[in-house]
């Protein structure tokens, strides 16, 4: 079928063997690609209650059907498995070039299982798959390993790799592609590290067929003109995510000093305007016309970013407004392979406990010197890193203050405090991989656009999250980038090329709903219950004292009421379990 290669590469690291099997056509049609296809395979390849650290826990690498074409932003790839960080589904995305090149190599998916006897690299050149000792790459930073493989294997190679944090199985180690692109959340790097897999390197020279290529080009040129390269999307290229710093700090929802406030007095020193002074170049992911990647050079550190989440969690949340230190911290996290959201949370927690006299970790808010040592300490598990590596939830519990740990289902919280955007509480609580802002984003209407009140929580907010989650569940099958606010009409135009027929909004939304319910079913199977759909208590009960959101609280009762309304809108029972009627309606072919 056009767009797909119809082939799955299955790698058994224990045996050091690889096989190619046909892509399951039924699942392809039901789940399209990316997130959906990954989840269906994940369900099949895992047994209930499987230990995420067991060799059988699969690492699934799945691009979307439009990877390897010139559909803008669609080069993205999802990395999946059962999350070592949360025990939920793991779907973590990165841009770069891996998704596109994997398609050129002739595969729609890689399934990695088993555990290599020693640190290993998998080298793929079209049909040829080799396993090589990565002993000489042990301990290498992400930039080093990519450079080494360009030299040792092929200059045109694209590399998925882990840094030292992944090798040491840190819960929030990420996987890197093209150095600056991270499948950041949920422990993809830990999963790779647990398999003794340092890198997967791919060279692809084959073709992605689309049917009538010239007609396709003509239509894509039109879609680019009308919907991508528009004035409304200009911010993505010109400013990128740091544009959010002023918005969230002004709106009273920017995590500040371990979420004790929502407004950071130093925000103007680390906002978009400040970073633009240090801008040196702009780069794009493979097959993307938006080019959002901003490179900065501050002091002697040059590299991409930081993005908003890093600024919020590793800046305001740890009380740092020193732009040079933040740049360096981001660079160190990139190199060691750390997710900056989780890093900023666990560090903010350690600082908070130190300031409160609960335990002296030797780090305080705004202490730049101690702060800059932390990425290495975490990755190598030395100094305070040895203790912080247990993660936010375990660390807060260990010292008897679970209320200070900002996490949901074990995954640390991103840079939007629900006290300044009430809808985010439901969005976070119902996210399928723990605290995540990329499933539903009420910040948009509540804070950025101001089209919904930020300080109310009712059924309309539950409805908003249901619709958004379905929309994004399909979008992540595509896989289109977050930075293209692609709507159903635009997805229909593209899906028409894939399915060779007219496509309705309803059927796309239904695929999204199907994918969302399958993810939920997986989490229910793994033991998650209604009580896990919770948020840190302070978000509901403890008002801020400063800023736009000062004095406002959601309240536990209100939150639980709206969570119930969310379940009912979803067609789930009062415990959040999808009903038989819902599963049949959606054509989901698995059951608990």
């Amino acid at each position, binding site marked *: 079928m056009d767009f797909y290669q119809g082939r799955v590469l299955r790698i058994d690291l224990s045996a050091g063997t690889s096989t190619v099997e046909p892509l399951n056509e039924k699942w392809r049609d039901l789940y399209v690609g990316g997130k959906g296809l990954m989840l269906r395979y994940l369900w099949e390849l895992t047994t209930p209650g499987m230990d995420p650290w067991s060799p059988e826990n699969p690492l699934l690498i799945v691009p979307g059907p439009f990877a390897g074409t010139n559909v803008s932003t669609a080069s993205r790839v999802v990395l999946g498995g059962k999350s070592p960080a949360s025990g939920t589904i793991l779907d973590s995305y990165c841009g770069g070039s891996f998704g596109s090149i994997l398609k050129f190599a002739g595969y729609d998916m890689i399934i990695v299982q088993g555990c290599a006897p020693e640190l290993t690299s998998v080298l793929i050149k079209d049909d040829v798959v080799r396993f090589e000792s990565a002993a000489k790459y042990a301990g290498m930073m992400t930039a080093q390993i990519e450079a080494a493989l360009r030299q040792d294997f092929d200059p045109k190679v694209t590399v998925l790799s882990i840094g030292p944090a992944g090798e040491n199985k840190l819960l929030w180690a990420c996987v890197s592609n093209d150095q600056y692109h991270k499948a950041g959340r949920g422990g993809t790097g830990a999963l790779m590290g647990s398999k003794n897999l340092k890198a997967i390197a791919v060279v692809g020279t084959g073709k*992605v067929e689309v049917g009538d*290529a010239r007609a396709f*080009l003509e239509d894509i040129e039109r879609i680019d003109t009308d919907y991508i390269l528009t004035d409304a999307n200009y911010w993505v*290229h010109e400013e990128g995510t740091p544009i959010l710093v002023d918005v969230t700090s002004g709106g009273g929802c920017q995590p500040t000093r371990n979420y004790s406030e929502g407004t950071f007095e130093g925000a103007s020193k680390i906002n978009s305007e400040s970073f633009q002074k240090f801008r040196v170049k702009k780069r*794009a992911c493979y097959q993307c016309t*938006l080019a959002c990647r901003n490179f900065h050079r501050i002091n002697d550190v040059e590299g*991409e970013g930081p993005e908003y989440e890093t600024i919020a969690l590793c800046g305001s949340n740890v009380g740092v407004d020193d732009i040079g230190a933040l740049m360096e911290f981001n660079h160190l996290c990139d190199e060691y392979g750390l997710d900056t959201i989780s890093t900023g949370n666990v560090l903010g927690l350690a600082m908070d406990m130190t300031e409160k006299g609960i335990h002296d970790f030797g780090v305080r808010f705004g202490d730049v010197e101690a702060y800059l040592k932390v990425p290495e300490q975490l990755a190598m598990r030395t100094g305070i890193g040895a203790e912080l590596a247990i993660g936010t939830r375990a660390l807060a519990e260990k010292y008897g203050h679970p209320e200070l740990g900002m996490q949901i289902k074990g995954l640390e919280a991103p840079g939007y405090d629900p006290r300044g955007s009430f809808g985010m509480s439901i969005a976070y609580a119902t996210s399928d991989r723990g605290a995540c802002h990329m499933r539903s984003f009420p910040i948009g209407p509540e804070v950025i656009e101001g089209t919904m009140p930020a300080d109310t929580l009712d059924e309309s907010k539950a409805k908003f999250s249901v619709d958004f989650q379905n929309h994004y569940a399909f979008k992540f099958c595509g896989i289109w980038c977050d930075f293209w606010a692609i709507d159903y009409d635009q997805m229909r135009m593209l899906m028409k090329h894939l399915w060779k027929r007219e496509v309705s909004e309803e059927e796309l939304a239904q695929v999204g709903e199907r994918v969302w319910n399958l993810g939920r079913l997986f989490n229910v199977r793994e033991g998650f219950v209604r009580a896990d759909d919770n948020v840190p208590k302070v978000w509901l009960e403890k008002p801020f004292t400063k800023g736009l959101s000062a004095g406002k609280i959601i309240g536990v009762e209100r939150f639980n009421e709206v969570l119930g309304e969310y379940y009912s809108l979803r067609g789930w029972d009062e415990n959040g379990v999808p009903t038989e009627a819902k599963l049949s309606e959606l054509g989901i072919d698995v059951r608990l």
Partner: protein
Amino acid sequence: MPHVMISSKKCTGCHMCELGCSAWHEGGFQPSRARLFTDVNPTTAVIKGHSCLQTGCSKCQEACPENAIVTKQITVTPSGAFANKEKVGESVTGVVLVVDEDKCTNCGDCYDVCPYGVIHEHPERKVAYKCDLCDGDPQCIAFCQNQYVLAVDLKVDKADKTLVVEA
């Protein structure tokens, strides 16, 4: 004479030019067969573009023992959203260098002399293949359409700074 230039300084490394090129010529997306390319170092983000300068270079034509590299009259009318809003649709007429596949013996002399590495043996047809400006609507330009970047551009002459289409 019209030819495509990649500004290595402006290029963001998205490879859209290679994708558009290969799909137009090869019937599917296959950048390994694109008629122009960019070398992108993802770590340093240093980029080097490679494209055919046509008669501004002519080394392939000079090297060909079979006279198989021939000039072809062409009118180039770039399309694309932002390949300069004012000048999209404006045409320039001139010649490009194309391969006469009946004459080409695939001897490889041109592959050796091309300074940009943009003329190769076609893996299936076993003759040389190179940029022909897509019969007048270069797809590399059409898809290098970030109005704020515009790296792939149509120029008239290598030494001529008065560009026909320029950001």
